[in-house]
């Protein structure tokens, strides 16, 4: 023992007179290492509130909370993570899983405060000294806990696909489906975005776990057209999937298809357990056997109501059958959905047009409720000079002819006018009929309302898209078997109100081209001719759409409406949800449990 050892206990006394290390006397901070896992920072504008950080946190240190003043855009839950530093262990799993990389950590590690409540804070929202720190831990851009690439879907090559109307998408194998399902982070942002609020993470989990019967039950809780939607849904769920923020979104639509494809129709009744309850004694008439009408029929029949569907065509499905070509949606898959609904005891009167074969007023008198799901079936005309030329064909008519096995006679060199799905389908159908196809569209490709996949596949199949091309006039060609279109180039000008840019014709850049036919596919409108004027005048119709109130109820007491004739979205999944929603309203009306229809649906 030396002298120092003898004196060392007394050195403690020199500290006895110092103030403790508190907020009044903070320690001298040493800077954290550049990638230190310090306090959390969240880029609130990049975060979509998916809550994956909360799910992965092993200490339950994260809550998702509402943030005042935050106006969430589509695909954003509006919630943001609140951290509890009484629980956090700074493991950074939350940062590693964050699909948008909005979450990171500063390299600040010291924080003194008198108020323990401050240790629960909303990162990036509550003002913190480290919010502007650049240093600290963040996930490397090439490091992902969830694979960013989706399992490639086996497809028929474009050249092969053109040889027939057979389905182009082949579907996942069991192994592929499970691997793709593994990418789901179960955030549920997709549920809020899906018009039918399908329980996406739940049915994807059944793929992962191999319990497809449970998967089918989950699908049918919100959508009785799952074989169809597994193929042609507009899949807005995928557009908002946070996994897609730094890679490919989950293939939600293909996983839905996988479930349905594995279950034969013969097993549906056993699996779904759809036993019809005691007959209610109430009768509902449905006009139109499209997705909305048949969806309403399914959910009403399950509640014991007698349902009669009136359909003009000889088969059900509406635009799904007569507007969507079979290479996207084969007839047998649509039949699978419809046959199951009909098997529950839904009566469908095919070839029966309301307003001709049976009057609307007869339905009002003979039924307890009526659902209108007639869709939009009157093609919008271009309204340019010469449009009545016999070689100007209607897009919906071309698709209907093909669906019925008729040759629409498009010719070998054609133009399609329009940029929606009908235009793309007309173009691709015409390619299969052997035509060279030019698509003339007033705006730019990025403005096209068609699904991006449809646009991409049209191009892959050899369709030429001419952007910013405005039809000006239709002229007679030298041969009566042909037609000439005069079209002008457009310049895009900004919309003063902030909408999408608008095309303006440039009169000095006008061209003439001759084709075997021109297919006009610029939109469709509803037809209310089947409703007598007295009833029609009581209905609220705005901008060509029948306005629904709560539960799709119209201003006529017994009448409900849904689908393309009532909503601006005009896609199958919205029609299906409208039918489901209306079924709830009709049931309430018939059961006398509530009065449907006071407030307009927002």
């Amino acid at each position, binding site marked *: 023992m030396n002298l120092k050892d003898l004196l060392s206990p007394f050195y403690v006394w020199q500290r006895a007179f110092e103030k403790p290390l508190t907020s009044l006397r903070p320690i001298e901070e040493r800077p954290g290492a550049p990638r230190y896992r310090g306090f959390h920072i969240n880029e609130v504008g990049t975060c979509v509130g998916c809550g994956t950080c909360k799910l992965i946190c092993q200490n339950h240190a994260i809550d998702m909370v509402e943030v005042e003043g935050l106006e969430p855009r589509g695909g954003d839950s509006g919630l943001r993570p609140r951290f509890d530093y009484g629980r956090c262990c700074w493991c950074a799993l939350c940062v590693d899983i964050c699909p948008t990389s909005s979450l990171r950590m500063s390299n600040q590690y010291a924080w003194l405060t008198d108020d323990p409540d401050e240790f629960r804070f909303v990162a990036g929202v509550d003002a913190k000294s480290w919010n502007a720190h650049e240093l600290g831990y963040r996930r490397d851009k090439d490091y992902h806990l969830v694979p960013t690439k989706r399992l490639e879907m086996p497809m028929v090559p474009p050249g092969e696909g053109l040889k027939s109307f057979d389905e182009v998408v082949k579907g996942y194998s069991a192994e592929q489906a499970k691997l793709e399902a593994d990418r789901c982070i179960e955030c549920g942002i997709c549920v809020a975005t899906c018009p039918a609020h399908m329980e996406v993470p739940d049915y994807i989990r059944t793929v992962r776990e191999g319990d497809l019967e449970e998967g089918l039950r989950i699908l049918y809780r919100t959508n009785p057209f799952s074989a169809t939607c597994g193929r042609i849904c507009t899949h807005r769920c995928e557009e908002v999937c946070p996994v897609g923020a730094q890679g490919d979104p989950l293939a939600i639509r293909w996983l839905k298809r996988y479930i349905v494809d594995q279950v034969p129709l013969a097993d549906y009744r056993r699996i779904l357990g759809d036993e019809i309850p005691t007959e209610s004694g109430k009768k509902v008439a449905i006009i139109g056997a499209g997705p909305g009408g048949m969806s309403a029929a399914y959910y009403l029949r399950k509640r014991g109501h007698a349902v009669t569907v009136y359909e003009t065509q000889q088969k059900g499905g509406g635009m799904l059958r007569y507007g969507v070509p079979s290479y996207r949606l084969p007839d047998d898959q649509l039949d699978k959905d419809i046959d199951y609904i009909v098997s529950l005891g839904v009566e469908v009167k095919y070839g029966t047009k309301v307003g001709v074969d049976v009057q609307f007023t007869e339905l009002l008198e003979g039924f307890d409720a009526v659902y209108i799901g007639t869709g939009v079936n009157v093609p919008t005309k271009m*309204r340019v000079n010469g449009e009545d030329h016999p070689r100007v064909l209607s897009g919906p008519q071309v698709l209907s002819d093909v669906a019925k096995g008729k040759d629409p006679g498009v010719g070998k060199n054609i133009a399609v006018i329009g940029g929606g799905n*009908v235009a793309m389908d007309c173009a691709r159908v015409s390619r299969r009929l052997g035509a060279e196809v030019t698509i003339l569209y007033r705006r730019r490709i990025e403005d096209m309302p068609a699904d991006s996949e449809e646009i991409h596949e049209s191009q892959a199949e050899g369709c030429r898209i001419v952007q910013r091309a405005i039809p000006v*006039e239709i002229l007679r060609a030298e041969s009566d078997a042909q037609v000439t279109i005069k079209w002008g180039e457009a310049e895009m000008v900004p919309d003063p109100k902030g909408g999408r840019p608008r095309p303006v014709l440039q*009169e000095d850049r006008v061209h003439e081209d001759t084709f075997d036919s021109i297919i006009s596919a610029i939109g469709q409108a509803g037809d*209310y001719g089947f409703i007598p004027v007295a009833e029609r005048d009581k209905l609220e*119709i*705005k901008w060509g*759409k029948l306005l629904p109130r709560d539960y799709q109820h119209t201003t006529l007491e017994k009448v409900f409406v849904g689908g393309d004739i009532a909503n601006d979205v005009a896609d199958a999944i919205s029609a299906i949800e409208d039918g489901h929603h209306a079924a709830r309203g009709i049931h309430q009306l018939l059961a006398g449990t509530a009065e449907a229809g006071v407030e307009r649906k927002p």
Partner: protein
Amino acid sequence: MNTVDEILDFAIEREQEAADFYADLARRAEKGGMKSVLLGFAEEEQRHKAKLLAVKDGQGELTPHQEVIDLKIVDYLVEVEPGVDISFQDALIHAMKREKAAFELYTDMAAKVTDATLREVCRGLAKEESRHKLYFESEYDERVLRDN
């Protein structure tokens, strides 16, 4: 027409005529939903009239030099007959044509009058009409040409 008030009275009368025309057509319209559409057009014309009345009363002003986009949609559309079976699309076409005709009328008047003040008023009215045309063209672009 030799005074500003006379020109404004003429323009106000035309807006009232247009409002009456749409209101009358709305009463007779047979297609579903067209009554409310046409009544909406009549209200729009009444708004135009109200603005001109405000100008006449010194409560508002014309803006002959303000830039207004010409979408030129109406330039290549056919003439339509506004009958009882008029469709939504045709009603918009008719409205666009009507506003364009008014624009051309005031533009002609501006070219013919010699008085500088009156010329500015005519130009201001022409600009108003082009603004009305833009309103209907924008509606047509959004609602009729959605897929095109």
